[in-house]
């Protein structure tokens, strides 16, 4: 009853892929069509069947019989009956509720397959207030409610087959260059191509929105630009900070045929929307007073965008959720490396921006050389004797801070820096006093939240151009900062147990280069920092990264 295949289908709807099996690649290629990648540690990758993944498969024409056939073909053991039933049951719901245009442009029409579904919908308070009965088999809803209705329907297990075409924005001719403006050859990598294909499909109903998950340093920006090229329309890119805004602008200018006059910045410092505009989440969610409106959200709603790119989509702030729900007619893409949100609202983000369309294990790209090979180390040091009693008496939060700011870390940083005389090094931390102390001790430049943007740009530039080999940075550099030559990161402190922060920080040194990268996390031994560090490492551990532990004494 056992066949020599790489997949184990579990009763909890997870699928375990033995990555060392000779057919694992072929199997993976099938799995990504109807499963979600959950984790990809070294040996056994976990995928999961979910309603969203099965509906996505159905919407892209991969029908239920094909799913069942693939499962049976790849499964090492007979597929549990409960799984086959689940697949058939869930997939059969696709197409039972369809959204299309109506005669009146102010409304969409929601068709239901049966009276039973109609009754069920009418009994749901959250839905009934948004729907007006049109006839025996359909409702009308206002166009703005499209996202909300879809969200509510997904929650009760009815995916909407959205046949309303996305609105094509004003034309903006965009093409990718084969040679960058800087004179380097440039092409889109196969997985980047696959990612944009997965999102756009044939540009028909059900395509053109979703989330793409790629490891840090693997070129998500290029995926964004490739999508821009396919759609050739007015585009808004929303990212995490001004430095990232400038990076996007530089990248677009460097790798596309757009000229600088077509690329605009919309930040706290400059509000200059153009055909392709890059803005920050901060500016969109800025409001002069706590109760007042968000003056810049209109950029999203009234900008006549044909495409919106949400960079680091897992950071999507709550006020943008609602607006995103109203922007269902626009092509949109979320880009991220780390699906995890500590507030657990991942599902909401993905149902508004769109389901996960593409994901690839980190270690696979590492093996292919598209991201750097990275070695992670956790260096444990003792707390100085004189701090042991104060530490023992401190509250939990104080303990964490004392352990994080352990003064002996300074010596460790010094030693680590001397280990890597030829590398470009980032020293990353959470506490400004600690970072300033390090910067002062070694005479290093520092970037924190209070560093003016111009100064930040200047320092990043110096780092990129090799004028400055070591940079001390606070959490402002956690995301979206592209420093291609950085190959060593020394983390002296972090935001408690944040898994995405750890991954993003590692991501700063993952740009492929002709040397390996090293990530050091310096932790105080026998303190609660150890536990937080262990939690921080979970996401990366699930991506196949292992931490070599070193204990430094004296």
């Amino acid at each position: 009853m056992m066949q020599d295949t790489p997949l184990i289908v579990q009763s909890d709807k997870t699928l375990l892929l033995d990555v060392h099996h000779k057919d694992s690649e072929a199997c993976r290629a099938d799995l990504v069509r109807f499963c979600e990648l959950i984790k990809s540690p070294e040996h056994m990758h976990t995928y999961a069947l979910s309603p969203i993944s099965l509906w996505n498969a159905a919407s892209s024409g991969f029908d239920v019989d094909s799913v069942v056939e693939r499962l049976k073909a790849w499964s090492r053991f007979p597929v549990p009956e409960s799984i086959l039933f689940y697949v058939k049951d869930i997939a059969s719901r696709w197409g039972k509720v369809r959204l299309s245009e109506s005669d009146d442009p102010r409304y969409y029409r929601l068709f239901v397959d049966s009276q039973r579904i109609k009754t069920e919908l009418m009994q749901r308070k959250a839905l009934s207030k948004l729907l007006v009965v049109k006839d025996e088999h359909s409702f009308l809803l206002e166009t703005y409610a499209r996202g909300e209705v879809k969200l509510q329907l997904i929650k009760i297990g009815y995916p909407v087959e959205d046949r309303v075409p996305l609105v094509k924005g004003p034309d903006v001719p965009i093409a990718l260059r084969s040679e960058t403006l800087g004179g380097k050859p440039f092409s889109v990598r196969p997985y980047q191509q696959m990612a944009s294909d997965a999102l756009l499909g044939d540009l028909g109903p059900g395509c053109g929105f979703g989330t793409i998950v790629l490891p840090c340093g693997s070129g998500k920006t290029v995926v964004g630009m490739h999508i821009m090229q396919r759609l050739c329309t007015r585009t808004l890119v929303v990212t995490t900070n001004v430095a990232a805004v400038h990076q996007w602008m530089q990248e677009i200018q460097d790798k596309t045929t757009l000229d600088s006059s077509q690329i605009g910045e919309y930040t706290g410092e400059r509000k200059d929307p153009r055909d392709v505009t890059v803005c920050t989440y901060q500016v969109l969610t800025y409001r002069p007073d706590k109760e007042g409106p968000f003056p810049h959200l209109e950029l999203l709603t009234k900008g006549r965008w044909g495409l919106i790119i949400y960079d680091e989509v897992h950071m999507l702030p709550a006020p943008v959720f609602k607006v995103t729900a109203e922007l269902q007619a626009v092509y949109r893409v979320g880009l991220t490396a780390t699906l995890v949100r500590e507030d657990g609202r991942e599902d909401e983000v993905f149902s508004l921006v769109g389901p996960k369309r593409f994901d690839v294990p980190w270690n696979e790209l590492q093996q292919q050389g598209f991201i750097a090979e990275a070695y992670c180390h956790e260096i444990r040091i003792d707390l100085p004797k004189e701090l042991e009693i104060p530490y023992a008496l401190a509250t939990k939060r104080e303990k964490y801070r004392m352990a994080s700011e352990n003064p002996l870390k300074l010596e460790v940083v010094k030693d680590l820096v001397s280990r890597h005389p030829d590398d470009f090094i980032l020293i990353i931390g959470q506490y400004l006093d600690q970072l300033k102390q390090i910067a002062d001790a070694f005479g290093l430049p520092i970037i924190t939240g209070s560093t003016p943007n111009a100064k930040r740009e200047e320092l990043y530039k110096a780092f990129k151009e090799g004028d400055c080999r070591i940079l001390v940075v606070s959490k402002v550099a956690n995301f979206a900062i592209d420093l291609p030559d950085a190959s060593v990161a020394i983390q002296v402190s972090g935001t408690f147990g944040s898994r995405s922060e750890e991954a993003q920080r590692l991501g700063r040194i993952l740009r492929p280069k002709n040397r390996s990268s090293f990530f050091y996390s310096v932790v105080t031994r026998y303190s609660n920092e150890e536990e937080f560090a262990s939690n921080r490492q979970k996401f990366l551990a699930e991506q196949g990264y292992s931490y070599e532990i070193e204990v430094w004494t004296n």
Partner: protein
Amino acid sequence: MDQLTDHAQQQFMKLLGRYSEDSYFYLVRNYLGVVTTPFHKPQLTARLCQFFSQKTHQDRMLELLDELDLVILSLLAVTGPLPSEVVMDLLKGSYSYGTILRRVANLQERLVLMTDEGRLVFNPLLAEELALRCSLRPLFGEHAQQVSSAPYCSTEFVRAYLSLVAKESKVAFREEYLRVFPSFEPPRLQQLFNALTQVLMQNLVLTGDKKVSIDYDRAGMLLELDDHQLVCLLLCSQMSTFRGESSFAFCSDLLSYLDALMQIDTASLKLLIRSLSLKHGIAYDSEVLTHLSTWGVITLDGVWKVADIQTGQQTNALLIDSDQTISYLGSRPKDDILYRFTFIEVLDRQKRYRLTKESFLWGLDSGLSYQEIERYLQDNSSTAMHSLLLKQLGMLNERYQAITVYDALLLSCDERTAHVVQNLPTLAEHRYKSISPTLFLMRRDTEEIWRQILASAGLLAGATRSYEKIEVQKQKEALSLSLLLQQALRCRRCTTAKVEGDTVRPMIDESLQREIESSSFSQAQKQDLLHRFHAKMILSSSQIVAQVINTTIEAGGFDYQGKVSLARQAVGRKDVALQLQLTDQELVVQALEVAYTVQREALLKAAVMPTMEVKILPISKIFLIRLVRFHVS
């Protein structure tokens, strides 16, 4: 082989020798023909034995077996010798009482079955051949084409359960556990949890109420069993009719038969349970079916599907992944310790445990040493997988060892005495630690013993006790776990039960029938011969002789006198029953008396079998009366 035959012949003759005169001569006359006086009984018996030892006659007897014959024979193959009343009782759910009664009697007439001290046994001369023809299918219905993959309470499940209890320090079922055991249906998992908790508490594997602790020595003993033995023990623990070894043998047989059948309907399952209860001499426990379901041995899916209980699975290596999950396919060896220092995440086709700081510390607290864990991981996974993990564990262990809390007594003495305490070999096992040259930590639980050792060494230990003695209340065990385990270890899955029998097509030799019909015998003789021919009692031409063995055996319709006569013939005979066809029912009775009303109407007073309820029936209301010989012994 000859010796076997001799033994069988002796056995045959011995059994026949015990038959009543009436039955004996009935059989002799049928098979050997007319018996003339004077006769020599041992000679007749030897001739009969010779008749049945002939291969042609044996083959003929076997050829004549039909489906119902095999049902009865198969039942006896399962249960062993049974009184005919019990056979009828067991099969009454599937066949009418009269049908079974007649057929059992017929098998006795055909000497396929014989009687040994009131119990039906296979004719010793045919026993081997008959056993080969017995199978489970005719008794217990169609069997499945493939085994069920439904989960059951395996040793793997018990390990996972204990790991969960260790993590939670509780035994109460929680909804979240469904994620840990996804292959179980929710109500069944809860049922299983509750039942397992009860058994483990009963056997002191688990102790405590609010905060539950695990006795890993006992758990280890339990996990020494294979799945078949474990399920036997669990079933026995719940049986209200528990009778030691017999109950274990019953459970082991039950599981073996179920394993062979793969699926079974409720009525057949009850029949199987009853049959095996009889076989092992234990009272029928109607709850066994529920227990089988609780432990996951059977799952209702139209019919009961039987779980594929493993007795010796291939063990697989551990897969240690970078996220500190440790997983494996299939099962682990009996002495596996993974569950003791990891927490279960998923028990499914692939079992996944997670090693956390808490789980590791739990392992150390519960008596595992770091070295054991280290050796275990080294032996069961590749270096690349375990090296980083071991390093982390080593550091954690170092930290763990930094503090030790002893539940001990402090023995303080002068230097001279200390020298003795330190060096007396018999004291070594009672001494935890020397904390200074004159201070020792001594075991609290063996205080009485080391005090005696000190006293006999000439050292006077102070009499004043400055501590409050802790009374450890040992919960009384219902049954000694070690005794149960000993019995469980003897349980072996017996796989000799044949499930599918050969297709049965009784072959009637019509030439014998023609020979009877064309004979010059009287009508009564012919009728009697034909009756015996149809009853499959005529095996060869040598039996076709002019005689009447059975007088009238059936009367009906308007033959009122015939019916009365038959009823009168049957009165008082213990080997004969009357099968009565009434307008609305059929009864099998033993005639007690024939009486007459004032109007001279004949009334039959009879005991209705099998309840033996006495009824009085006007013979005129009986449509058909048939005389049935139901004891040929």
